[in-house]
């Protein structure tokens, strides 16, 4: 059994005192970074990169990876407690997680997120160990046409996310698409919707939009309701999921893990796409469909499992091909190069201790994260008990710090305030911000892939149907669209008959 030999090598590498220590440091930092809104793993890893120069290569990569997947755990904490997604992959967690917190089930939601993340992290690491080299090849079969079709499927699926009217959801998605187009056009370098402001040349940062619409919008909305909120927060249910809860989340966690592992391998927004694909899927297949958006435990378990599995499998293309699938992985490649290691297929054969040591450290790291997070749950849940007039200024300050730290620009803070007002407006009008944010993230990517595919095919649109993977996904998207529109079509027909 070659796998066991490899794993034995990995664990013997990861189980040295130094490596365990740095793995712990990485996961603690990652959790902290995930909890603090705005400060993401990307900035943290960039800042810590020079401190790793003096460490051995394996040790430094173990620590940096810990920061990355640790942040996936932490990101869900603020999403659940105060409706502030710390990472793009926790937007979806906020939908039902925050609703659970308002029902007095904050502890349960946090525990579910931690357990779901733990299971998914372990399972995805196992996949990484078993299939890393063949999986890496899959990522390369995805060309621009396939990505475009994947994004179309994602957008159609995001309509399913909406809990209210389909029309409003479509409107919000389109608004998100438009917001996503702000900035310099990649192909021609021409500024679009920038109003001559260089600050908008690179588009609006996702964190600014998410914090404004979710975080600030929620605060204004709460303050308007006055005492109503504090009554909700006074009661705290059980901190841990009951046996019945655990039964409910087994299937969603498994499905989320599978989806996350599959999408995480693909370059681009793997973990983020995975989290909302998992949510959309649960909303369609779950027996508790009606509860979604009002605090369904499945709506926390599935996306949390998906984003952690995705974070873990996004190491596959990086470690086996030397191809980074997201900016964090690009930094990891940088860290390896500084250590004198050329990432690529050779890493597996020439540096087996490095590869398997990182894989083994992920398991250890996931155990650390659960041990860290479960005891903290009581503490976090009690945070909701803090009177709101103390809590909201604190959130505001952290939001401002987080947004400012993105690129040290006060313009971003003003922009966040603008989105905060917009978020409040959305709350008043019953428009859900989640579909808008997904449109905002997917829109620009979709445009990019569409134009790239057409440039490469010399403007022949048939390219999307000629490639089997792409055609399959477009067919799925069409099917979904029919499913979504069917009820409203039937209603129309019924009205017509009545007349």
């Amino acid at each position, binding site marked *: 059994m070659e796998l066991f030999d490899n794993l034995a090598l990995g664990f013997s590498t990861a189980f040295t005192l130094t490596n365990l220590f740095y793995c712990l440091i990485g996961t603690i930092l990652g959790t902290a970074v995930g909890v603090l809104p705005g400060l993401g793993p990307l900035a943290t890893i*960039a800042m810590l990169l020079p401190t790793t120069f003096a460490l051995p290569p394996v040790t430094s990569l173990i620590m940096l990876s810990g920061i990355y997947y640790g942040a996936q755990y932490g990101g869900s904490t603020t999403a659940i407690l105060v409706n502030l997604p710390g990472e793009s992959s926790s937007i979806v967690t906020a939908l039902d997680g925050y609703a659970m917190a308002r029902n007095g089930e904050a502890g349960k939601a946090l525990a579910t997120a931690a357990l779901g993340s733990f299971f998914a992290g372990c399972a995805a690491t196992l996949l990484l160990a078993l299939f890393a080299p063949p999986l890496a090849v899959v990522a390369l079969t995805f060309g621009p046409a396939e990505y475009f079709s994947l994004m179309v499927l994602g957008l159609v699926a995001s309509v399913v996310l909406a809990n209210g009217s389909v029309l409003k959801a479509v409107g919000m998605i389109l608004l998100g698409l438009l917001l996503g187009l702000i900035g310099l056009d990649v*192909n021609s370098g021409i500024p679009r919707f920038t109003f001559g402001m*260089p600050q908008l040349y690179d588009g609006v940062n996702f964190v600014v939009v998410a914090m404004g619409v979710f975080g600030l919008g929620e605060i204004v909305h709460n303050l308007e309701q006055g005492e109503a909120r504090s009554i909700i927060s006074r009661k705290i249910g059980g901190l841990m999921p009951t046996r019945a809860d655990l039964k409910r989340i087994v299937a969603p966690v498994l499905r989320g893990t599978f989806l996350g592992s599959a999408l995480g391998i693909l370059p681009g927004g793997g973990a983020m796409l995975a989290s909302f694909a998992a949510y959309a899927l649960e909303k369609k297949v779950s027996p508790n469909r009606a509860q979604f958006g009002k605090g369904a435990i499945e709506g926390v378990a599935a996306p949390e499992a998906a984003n952690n599995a995705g974070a873990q499998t996004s190491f596959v293309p990086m470690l086996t091909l030397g191809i980074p699938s997201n900016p964090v992985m*690009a930094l990891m490649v940088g860290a390896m190069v500084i250590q004198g290691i050329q990432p690529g297929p050779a890493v597996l054969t020439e540096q087996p201790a490095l590869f398997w040591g990182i894989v083994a450290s992920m398991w250890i790291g996931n155990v650390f994260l659960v041990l860290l997070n479960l005891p903290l749950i009581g503490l976090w849940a009690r945070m909701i008990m803090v009177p709101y007039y103390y809590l909201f200024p604190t959130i505001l300050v952290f939001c401002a710090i987080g947004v400012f730290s993105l690129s040290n620009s006060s313009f971003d803070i003003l922009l966040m305030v603008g989105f905060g007002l917009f978020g409040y407006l959305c709350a008043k009008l019953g428009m859900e911000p989640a579909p808008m944010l997904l449109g905002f993230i997917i829109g620009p990517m979709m445009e990019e892939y569409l134009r790239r595919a057409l440039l490469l095919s010399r403007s022949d649109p048939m390219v999307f149907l000629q490639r089997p993977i792409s055609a399959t996904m477009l067919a799925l998207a069409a099917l979904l669209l029919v499913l979504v529109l069917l009820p409203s079509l039937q209603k129309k027909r019924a009205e017509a008959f009545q007349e």
Partner: protein
Amino acid sequence: MHRIIKAVALAAILATPAKAAETIKLLVPFAAGGPTDLFARIIAPDLGKELGGTVIVENRGGAGGTIGTAAATREKADGHTLLLTTSALVLSAGTMASVPYDPQKDIEPVYLLGEVQTMIAVRPSLGVNDLKGLVEKAKGTKLNYGSTGSGGTMHLGAELLAKSAKVAMEQIAYRGAAPALTDLIAGSVDLVNADVPILRQYVKDGRLKGLVIFDTKRSTLLPEIPSATEAGMPDLMLTNWYGVLIPKGASPAQKQKIAEAIAKVVKQPQIAAKLADNGLTDPQDTAAFKARLDADFARWLPWLKANGIRAE
């Protein structure tokens, strides 16, 4: 309440540094994690020691480096603010509709950390083995090249080749060099011009084929690839420089002091090795940096105009 005010006041007094003169801000006009940021973080700790203070790296990314550069030009030239930027300083002046400063007057060169060479790499399945073969191929079919968008060096490098060889090639733009290389390895695009260090590993393990270094001399990282001069197209010249600049108005003595400090740092064996490993070689003093900048402006601004590479 009074107690709180007192405590805050006390904390403010304690937090005030004894001498504010000791922090030096090294502005990087690009996001954290990129190569420019990396070089800044490699030299910052030792540069602080040399200058008798602390050097703090501050990232002000955005709009192709122009936002951070504009911020630097608004600072005092008292030696407490330095800018670490790249060839983008020159290129943005030629490709952007307008930049809010004069790159030739408002900011002055202090020290050139070095240059990173660029090269052409193609996918092996294209079936070309040298520059001549590539030019032949490009005359027969319209090739696609990957880039990081209009006005970036990947765009200019490929266009330099296209104009010299009098062929037309299609630009396929990406958000960053990494996704462009992914598509090149997967075979979606045919070639790129990119920095040698980021192409090195792929060329070494045969997933990409290196054809020519855009310089008069070969690269120390990939010594087997011919230079443009050797390949018979000497006008293919494109290296990315990384240098430290200061807002206008600093005294020559001050510039010299900073330049000498940086020179000391980048010539330390350990740091020199780290920089060289990332492809950065040939540090140069203030006068040589100034000459290089002037030559760059004189070369690129007319070229960009003549070839219509300008965002309107």
